[in-house]
């Protein structure tokens, strides 16, 4: 187990290093700099600013310096927002994204699995058809269309919720709903198909033949095995959802990390771009890392001896 985890961890570090390096150089390739505006900045003032932020150095020097700082845990200060450190801005804007994201994940896991289970148990019955039609619509409708639609309906027309903002508990409802629909639909379909597979498998038939009661079969065998594909999906989905959906944040006016990321690129706020990239990278890789471990824990077929180490 330890070797398995250590291996995965090392892989994570290497990927992170590659990500940081690639982003750094790509970022420097895009035209523009943090001090551009409609009114051209006077050359001598621009030169002074470039020197103050260390941007007058050759790019390899900037790269080595940056890496050095990152290793010491220093992501630097924003080049757009005066005197504000990158870590602080990320921490503050990540909060709303995380809150909405976690709600959306929990709701989509619960609702998705329950829907999938019901559909599987009532296979080819009306309820199955209804659930799966809904799921297909859920997957097909882009979240921004749905977001605009529910915003118009529930906030503007019916006035049940605020159009934008993030200060009251009720402000969670619409963005969470908009974020959760697609994962719900996906999880429901995944659960259903894998449940069906499990239900038809030999060992369930054996269990039935042994005379185990239906409830035990369901909880011990069917759900447990049927849920495996969902676990694989939930990892990356979690990372995706909590890193903030730019579109959803834009529509509901939430100052989350997704907005900050896009903004930092428009502003050519170099330190901020790198900071958010590293942060995203860590989250995505951690999510994978945890998924890998969870997978081993749940799936009895994967043995830790390393023979089939996923």
């Amino acid at each position, binding site marked *: 187990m330890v070797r398995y985890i250590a291996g995965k961890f090392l892989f994570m570090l290497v990927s992170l290093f590659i990500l940081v390096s690639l982003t750094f150089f790509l970022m420097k390739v*895009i*035209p*523009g*700099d943090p*001090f*551009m*505006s*409609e*009114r*051209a900045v*006077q*050359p001598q*003032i621009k030169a*002074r*600013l470039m020197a*103050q*932020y260390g941007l007058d150095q050759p790019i390899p020097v900037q790269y080595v310096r940056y890496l050095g700082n990152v290793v010491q845990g220093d992501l630097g200060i924003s080049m*757009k*927002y*005066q*005197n*504000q450190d990158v870590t*602080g*801005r990320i921490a*503050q*804007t990540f*909060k*709303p994204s*995380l*809150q909405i994201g*976690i*709600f959306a994940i*929990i709701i989509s896991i619960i609702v998705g699995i329950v829907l999938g289970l019901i559909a599987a148990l009532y296979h080819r019955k009306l309820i199955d058809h209804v659930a799966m039609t809904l799921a297909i619509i859920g997957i097909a409708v882009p979240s921004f269309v749905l977001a*605009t639609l529910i*915003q*118009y309906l529930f*906030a*503007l027309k019916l*006035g049940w919720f*605020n*159009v*934008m*903002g993030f*200060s*009251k*508990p009720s402000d*969670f409802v619409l963005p969470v709903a908009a974020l959760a629909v697609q994962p719900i639909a996906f999880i429901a379909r995944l659960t259903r198909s894998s449940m069906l597979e499990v239900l038809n498998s030999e060992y369930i038939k054996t269990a039935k033949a042994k005379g185990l009661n239906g409830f035990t079969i369901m909880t011990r065998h069917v759900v447990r095995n049927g849920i495996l594909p969902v676990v694989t999906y939930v990892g990356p989905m979690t990372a995706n959802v909590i890193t903030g959906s730019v579109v959803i944040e*834009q*529509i*509901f*006016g*939430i*100052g989350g990390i997704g907005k*900050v990321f896009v*903004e930092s690129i*428009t502003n*050519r706020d170099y330190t901020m771009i790198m900071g958010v990239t590293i942060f995203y990278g860590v989250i995505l890789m951690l999510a994978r890392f945890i998924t890998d471990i*969870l997978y081993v*824990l*749940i799936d009895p077929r994967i043995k830790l001896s390393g023979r089939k180490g996923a």
Partner: protein
Amino acid sequence: MKKKSWLVLMTLVLAFSTLLAACGSGSESGTGTSGQAGEGTASQDLRINMSAEPPTFDPAQAKDSQTNTALKLMYEGLTRMGADGNPAPGVAEKWDVSEDGLKYTFHLRDNATWNNGEPVTAEDFAYAWEHVLSPDTAPASEYAYQLYYLKNGEAFNTGKIKDFSQVGVKVVDEKTLEVTLENPAPYWLGLTSFYTYYPVNKKNVEANDKWAAKADTMVTNGPFTLTTWTTGQQLAWTKNDKYWDKDNIKLNTITASLVNSGATEYSSYQSGQLDYAGAPTGEIPTDQIPAAKQQFPDQFQAKGIASTYYYEFNNKEKPFNNAKIRKAFAMSINRQAIVDNVTLGGQIPAFGFVPPGIKGQTDEYRTEHKDSYFKEDAAQAKTLLAEGMKEEGYTTLPPITLIYNSSEAHQKIALAIADMWKSNLGVDVKTENQEWSVFLNNRQSGNFQVARAGWTADYNDPMTFMDMWVTGGGNNNAGYANPAYDKLIADAKATQDAAKRMDDMSKAEKMLIEDDMTVMPIYYYTSISLVKPNLKGIVVDFSGAIDFSKAYFE
């Protein structure tokens, strides 16, 4: 088996506890704001939206319109821009000007204080201005040039003079500030209401160089104090009871959401979540303007502001190095049609470069000097194009690309104009949108043929539009180089004769547009907003900058 189910359970518990923690902090931060929707007319709590978070609250670092809006609430300069467009007394209660227009003596009012109760002194102004100009200030102030009017201001900023006492700012006593200018500038007094000229609290700035990074470490002297600053989410100001003119301030709080979406902003206004929407703090999407006019006829406002929307020809690149070809392009579009069908905001077709709203000698410059520099005439444009092509020896025009920064509004205009060029001149022009920084980079480095541009007044004088086109000027992206033009501008800057000044500038404008058609003016901007019917007292100045400090609900 048992062990594994425990693990699953643990994971669930962990996930749930994070969720609960998240909820807790969420509701905590929610209690910070008061005066939400639905309250009657009595509540003096204003809700606005700002499409971007001000990047700074330090006047020396300010450079954009969002920061301008925020700082107008939090600071007050020597003067304050009045509703009539003239500088009114601010921290300075009165001032004397010397005969030659070079020396100003400001007398600060006794009851002007910082929000911590300390008096605002002449020293605070001198210190703030030194901070802006000092070459050691990090990061360097991009707007330092606003202080180049001061004697030796530029020399000190560029490091030619090391001693700040040689700069034209003198603290006579605690409440008297003496300012000496490099050249007499009739509009300079208005600039003392501009953010780069705001004072800062010397003691506070010296004690903490990151004083502007947090709401509770700022010391300000304006009518409002920043009390809530949630990164990326919300700003809120509360009335400053230590402000000298507090009796004329009626709002208790101002709350700004920070949402960068015109559609969301407009919906919020419709739902009653905002009291003010639109420019300059936010935006009403162009395609919603007709609906907004119809739904809120009494709340829709389109106010002309001193800004010009134009296309810049690269005067150094083929085919626009030829004046006749430039004229042909400028004459072959229908500006009224663009304003009526595309921009929809009551903009005024532009045939000059200086917009209305800018002061002339006695009246508005645009009233004194009409912008009748050319007429739209497709037939004549065709003739001019043919002549121009002959001069350059073209049988067909080289391929032309028009660039603009990505935005739906700019795109619609670009497509309409390209279409007019096609049908009136028979010329195919490719339109290309570019991301903002890429676009600026191309435009500023001369890597374009035709580019979209807009220019807003820095101060209330035609010079703010005219001196940018001198040979080698930092914003002269068109590459215009005309010694006669340069001379007119230099003369206008040197003279004290107001009539000659205006005359020189109008001659220069004629040269720029009528003779050389360096740029193609399209329209003069309007500032479009929605204002709740009972919300009064908002001041929008000539440049479109907004001051909410004296606003109130009836």
